[in-house]
């Protein structure tokens, strides 16, 4: 099977049923996407496929088509993505475990809706955070929207 992750092509030999998450983590050693639930309920494993947020724990590798972006692929030329910059400014992460998924979900939201309302954020940001960083996430998304010129 062929996969394109963060601009690099890989040839993967794995059980076709293996979720994309475990191919990324255990075979390709890309550890940004995290395992949280295995049933698409928490979003810790979120990656972007052709720009859309996908919960990689519930997506069989054989069914995966398109360019995959993980948190590791957001930096460009050593510069953080504006959403990552906003996350830094607002000191969003606490334990940090869910934040790769939160950041990618926010990137996808701002791609689609450059100037989101509170309701847009509530609807798009369905990932779980047990530390309760939601108020900081919301503030960081609005700040990132501004920084990106919305």
């Amino acid at each position, binding site marked *: 099977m062929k996969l394109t992750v963060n601009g690099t092509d890989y040839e993967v030999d794995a059980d076709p049923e293996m979720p994309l998450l475990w191919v990324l983590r255990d075979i390709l050693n890309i550890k940004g996407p995290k395992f949280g639930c295995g049933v698409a309920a928490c979003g810790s494993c979120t990656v972007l496929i052709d720009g859309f947020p996908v919960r990689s724990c519930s997506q069989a590798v054989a069914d995966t088509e398109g360019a995959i972006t993980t948190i590791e692929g957001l930096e460009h030329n050593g510069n953080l993505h504006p959403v990552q910059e906003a996350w830094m400014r607002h000191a969003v992460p606490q334990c940090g475990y869910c934040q790769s998924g939160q950041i990618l979900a926010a990137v996808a939201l701002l791609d689609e809706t450059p100037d989101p309302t509170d309701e847009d954020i509530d609807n798009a940001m369905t990932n779980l*955070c047990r530390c309760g960083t939601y108020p900081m996430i919301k503030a960081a998304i609005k700040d990132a929207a501004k920084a990106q010129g919305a």
Partner: protein
Amino acid sequence: MSKLGKITRRSFLGFAALAAGGVAIGYYFYQKPHANPLDARKAEGDAVFNPYVTISKEGEITIITPRAEMGQGTQTTLAALVAEELEVSLDQIKVEHGPASAAYYNSAMFMEGGPFAAFDTSLLAESARETMGVAAKFLGVQVTGGSSAMIDAFQKMREAGAAARTILVQAAAAQWDVAPEGLKAENGVITNPQSGESVSYAEVAATAAELTPPSDIKLKSPRDWKLLGKSQPRVELREKVTGAPIYGIDVELPEMLYATVRMSPRFGANVKTHDPAPALQIRGVEKVIPLSSRYGHGLAVIATNTWAAFKGADAIKVVWEEAEYPADTEGMRRRFMAALNQDASFSLGGSGDPKGVLSQTPEDRHLEVTYEVPFLAHATMEPMNATAQWRGETLEIWCPNQTPTMVRHVCASHFGIGGENIIVNTTHLGGGFGRRLEVDYALYAAIVAKETDGRPVKVTWTREEDTRHDAYRPMAVARYRGALTEQGNLSAVDVDVAVPPLFKKVVGRLFPDVPLAGPDKLLLEGAYDQPTTIENRRYAAHEVDLPIPIGFWRSVGNSYNGFFHESFIDEAAHKAGKDPLAFRLTMMNDEEHAPAKGVLRKVAEISEWGSPLSEGKGRGIAHTISFGTWVAQVVQVDVSDGYLTIEKVWCVADPGIVLDPANFKAQLISGAIFGLSQALGQEITFSNGEVEQSNFYDFDAMRMHQTPAFHIELLENSPHMGGAGEPGTPPAPAALANAIFAATGKRIRTMPLSKEIDFT
């Protein structure tokens, strides 16, 4: 037996009781410091100053922050304590958790282990704290919990920084042949203002580390602090926004295998029969092995990747033995109710004659209500995991944990080897909340690694396994009785709480041979230790015998007693026809209750308590002091569209000293969300002897769309320093239930509140 042993064993059950369990103690021994664990691992040319500060040959300054980073920001503030006195900025240093060592024992957590309110400064309470502090050193338990890291480190880690700076300056002074008093240390550089000469710490580190620091170390006045008292960026922030592999689940070692566990869903029950054949047919599965320990019985699957291990575990055909406890929640509830109606196991903090007053008060001025909360899972985002490798008789473990010395202790006693043969590496934690004070995951990995011929193996639990094999926040049932005077004041409160003995269960797992006696204050904390001047009061615990594993869940006993106590005070206020804020303030008349009044008045001010609200809205108030921090919260809800929305939370806390305001506020928000999450639907229930819930679809927590707006204020009036991680949790569910009553007239006394009202 020593005097210490007698006092602790006779007087109360606390961590110090462990020391009384057989440790021989002498004064000389107490004076002797623990060995510095950094000496053993130092590289050629490293200058080791003390257990907290090293400077490498290349000039890299490392600060050891020996507490688990699980989101609470502890490593940043601990590093700031050292850096403040060392005179370096946080971007000049490397921060590391460091090795497992008794040198990093936590005395503050032990000191508050006795049955005394945080504001109790009586001779008995103070001498108990001192005794416990001494015991802590002997036990040498390196542990992150009880919101105690800053209290524990405040003096000793600032002293570590100051000691290192002092000898660095002395070394420079010797090099220039001048008096050290005239030199200045700043940003890792020592200068001589007279000559204009300067030298970096790195250049004098090797000579300095040979010097003996003075025994009387003078610390800076808080007025001169550059880092402390100010918000600092997290030292690990960049790693956490770039997905760096910093968690236990990210550990990657050469030749590593992967595994998972499938433990008996019935606690204590064994495997009756099992057929591993279907698992062994799965591509990547290598082995199915039995797994038995003090934590339970089951099977482990070893594979070449995590997914294969998960699939294999699912495929094993297994029949489990029956459980030796009531099969369902209803059967368990009967045990709680039976315990409640039997004689109390012990009581704490009472005064006067509440039963007498109750019997003499007319019934129309009586209250009698029963509250109930369920078992709860911790549900950390990162499921339990650990990686282990045996090299001959040496065991190395990598795992996210809150107590590395306990990982070592439990593994050493399981395998009958010396602790010196076990290396524990503590990674970042994807959440802790008390779950990682248990060490089952580490022991399981060590047992599995016995089967991999010296190869390392990472054992990752599925979410289902994690939810169904926790050390749960215990179920608890409470009966509160109260009597009001004609003027509508509480003249008596009589409290009975039925809950399994929490401390005994936890310590019993860790130290099965240690006899424990005395009151288990965790059953009543959040009730008996609250600021009140109600004249007649009794707080009685009824220990419930139930072999379900229970443990420390963010705020521990305060998590249930905070809800019971603060709901009851609100009910009494309404029955008396009084404002719940004013009602509280009239019952806090001792001088030491002043910080409670301070946070309540401030939260009333910022929430505009008492101002009119539109139809369908309501506000509730609650206050709990826990882990030394006084916290008052007001919750505002809206039910006008038929669903309950938590609109706003105002929170005022007084921890005495705030070392990092932004971080402290973030912890209060986090704690409140953790507390509110339980109301939205969390419960662990039983059927057929097994936990019924298994994943986030049936054990969820607050999500973005349910999150209220927060307004947090910090005060610094309390005479003692309090913790940050847990105190935000206890008042939140009570303030919410009280707000629901204000908005709807409906009083909900059972958690989760979602059983009786629909949330958005």
